[in-house]
């Protein structure tokens, strides 16, 4: 797995005039890793990708591929291949010519090119489609041709710029596993750009979450979800109930937050922030909807919230119950469908329990907008 070529960003800044697109990015991507940049649109993740592929030079800092500084090397001199958001298949070339383009510019003969293209067509399960034009293929087929074209260049690093965003849901889910499959087979480093957290979490070995040019957290998918480093990550990845307040007391790995409307609640301090939260700091507490459960106990506790049902939704695998706490504090609870009827009526009063380990206390910060 670690045989591939790694990519390092050392203190990379990218500015356009006064606008800072990427601020002090430090990333180490191991060889053979499936690495994702996750963030809302306009957060600078595509800019990072263009800096890696060589379409723009960082204003400051270095891009290293396989330990070599890439400064001054153009996109055609780097061992990278980029899969564009719109795929950028050459519309006037046949599919096989598209795939073998990187060999054509190196001067390979038509016979060689055709042979290699047919091999790759086999790999992406499009045998016999080589003589079509890209416009005659479906969205998913084009997708695979773009991947084959990039792989034909035998890059050390494959860069993917939201390649699935144009596909419909079913195909997207199918392509996710296919991409992962291909990555495991060829064993090269994949750097994947997406705003879709589902894609990032399911496919990646590591995920970097970006916000407005800043990388907030780099970790594997489970840590990103369960142990977010900032309020932004907690709110951007998955759904979360937010409770604002102040730190009332701190122990080594947990804190009691005096929330504005819901009283004192206990939460684990996320591992990146242990030792940083002080009593009296502005803090935020996050509880996932699926971490809440209905309590049979009605005594007050720092892991128990009292709330009133506003409405309920049934979504097949789970019920979503929307509640209102004291002073109108909105919350959402998700319950796995185990055959019980969880369609609570409006106005029903419930006590909600949570495990303090599944609640995360973080320093107050900017949240991801909906």
């Amino acid at each position, binding site marked *: 797995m670690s045989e591939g070529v790694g990519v390092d960003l050392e203190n990379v800044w990218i500015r356009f005039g006064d606008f800072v697109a990427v601020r002090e990015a430090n990333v180490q991507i191991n060889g053979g890793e499936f690495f994702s940049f996750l963030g809302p649109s306009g957060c600078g993740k595509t800019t990072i990708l263009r800096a890696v*592929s*060589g*379409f723009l030079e960082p204003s400051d800092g270095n891009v290293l591929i396989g330990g070599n500084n890439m400064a001054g090397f*153009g*996109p*055609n001199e780097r061992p*990278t*291949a*980029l899969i*564009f958001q*719109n795929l*950028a298949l*050459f*519309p*006037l070339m046949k599919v096989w010519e598209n795939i073998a*383009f*990187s060999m*054509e*510019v*190196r001067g390979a003969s038509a016979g060689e090119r055709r042979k290699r293209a047919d091999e790759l067509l086999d790999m992406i399960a499009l045998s016999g489609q080589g003589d*079509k*034009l890209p416009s*005659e293929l479906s969205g998913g087929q084009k997708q695979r041709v773009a991947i084959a*074209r*990039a792989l034909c*260049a035998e890059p050390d690093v494959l860069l993917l710029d939201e390649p699935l965003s144009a596909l419909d849901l079913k195909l997207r889910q199918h392509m996710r596993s296919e991409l992962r499959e291909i990555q495991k087979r060829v064993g090269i480093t994949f750097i994947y750009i997406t705003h879709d957290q589902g894609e990032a979490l399911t496919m990646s070995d590591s995920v970097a979450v970006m916000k407005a040019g800043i990388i907030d957290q780099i970790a594997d998918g489970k840590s990103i979800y369960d142990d977010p480093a900032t309020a932004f990550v907690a709110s951007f990845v998955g759904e979360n109930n937010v409770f604002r307040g102040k730190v009332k007391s701190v122990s080594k790995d947990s804190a009691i937050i005096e929330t504005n409307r819901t009283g004192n609640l206990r939460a684990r301090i996320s591992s990146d922030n242990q030792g940083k939260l002080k009593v009296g700091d502005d803090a935020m507490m996050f509880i996932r909807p699926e971490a809440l459960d209905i309590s049979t106990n009605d005594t007050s506790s720092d892991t128990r919230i009292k709330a009133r049902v506003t409405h309920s939704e049934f979504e097949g695998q789970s019920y979503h119950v929307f509640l209102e706490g004291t002073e109108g504090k909105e919350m959402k609870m998700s319950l796995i469908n185990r055959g019980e009827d969880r369609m609570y009526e409006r106005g029903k009063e419930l006590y909600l329990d949570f495990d303090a380990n599944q609640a995360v206390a973080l320093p107050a910060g900017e949240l991801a907008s909906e």
Partner: protein
Amino acid sequence: MKTDSLLIRIGLGFYLVLFFTYLLGPLVLMSITAFNSPSFPQATPWEVLTFEWFNVLYNDARIVNGIKNSFIIGFFTVILSVIMGLAGALVLTQIWPKIRATFYTIIIAPILIPGVVLGISTLVFWDRVNVMLGLPNDSFLHNGILLTVLGQSTFIASYCMLVFVARLQRYDLGLTEAALDLGATHTQAFRKIQLPFLAPAIGSASVLAFLASFENYNTTTFTFGKYPTLTIELAQKVRYGINPSISALAFIIVCLTVLFALVHEVRNRRVQLAIANGAPVGAVTSGFKLPKIFAGNPVAVVLALFVAVAVAVISYAQFYDPEPAKAIILQEKRAAQQLRIEELQRKLKDKRLQKNLKGPDIFNEGKSKIPKLEEKKQKTPFGSGIFSPNNLNKVAPGAETPAPAPKPASPFGSVFDPTNLNKVAPKE
């Protein structure tokens, strides 16, 4: 309501007829004159179907030479203009946005400058360059073809650029980036990706440039030197009077234009049809499958009819000889002339008889001037201005004919035109 819509329909139909008459009428009329025998281009009266004007055209060395020069100049103008236009368009689409508007204005200016000015300035500029380089007066910089190509290209390149800009706006720069990313050099990316994308625009820019060059007069008129183009030759010809060989040339040009337009349209439709039905484009662009095309493709049918008519006309021309018919018409003309002369003589006799009986009739003079002609020889007793020789000379030749002979629309044609008579006489 019903009558209203009927009125609108009639009005619309009338308008359409009017519109197309205005648009195509001159072309149709002119095409007809190419096949009519009178030596002045005229559609009515129809005399005899003839192809001699095509022959005359073919044997007119100046016209043929003009066409040759036009083609040479057109060819080089296309090359120069397309290259300059493409370069300009590439710069325009990639230039820093802030100076794009300024650059555009500068590069589009030659279109707005009158061609006459461009012609003069081309002449003056290259003459100065010639002097500065210390070249002799007959150097290549005074060559008519070179100067005309340079002069025309100044503004035709701008037309080409507009065509390229329109195409380039639809070009995805990501394609060039993708090529670079796959290891292509900038030259390879341009040649293998961007240039093929621009191919249709290069085609249409070439056609546009050639047509603009072919029909250009006002710039060329200053620069042609020893190499007059077709437009120059035509303009010079018109000064000395024209014959229907020009109509014949125009007819050929119209036919070629229609033919190429139809072929292009048919091709377009086939490709579109293929795309709409999900068939690969290669299936229609290679190989000729006529029967399928005729189904639901009126343009193809029109084209087929057009070709059939052309073939029929040409094969008819192989054995058709208008000379006997012409001779008949000439005879008819002669006979009519003879009749008129006899009638004239009879009238003269009558007048003389009357005069002998009653003496000269003053009140009749205005209606018929023939008696005056006769009286001229006699001594006039009246001394009036009407009998002055100057006056008489003016009115005398047209006196009996109801309309002046040279007018082509006259019901008598040019039967009484003495020059005409001289022309046709030797052919008998």
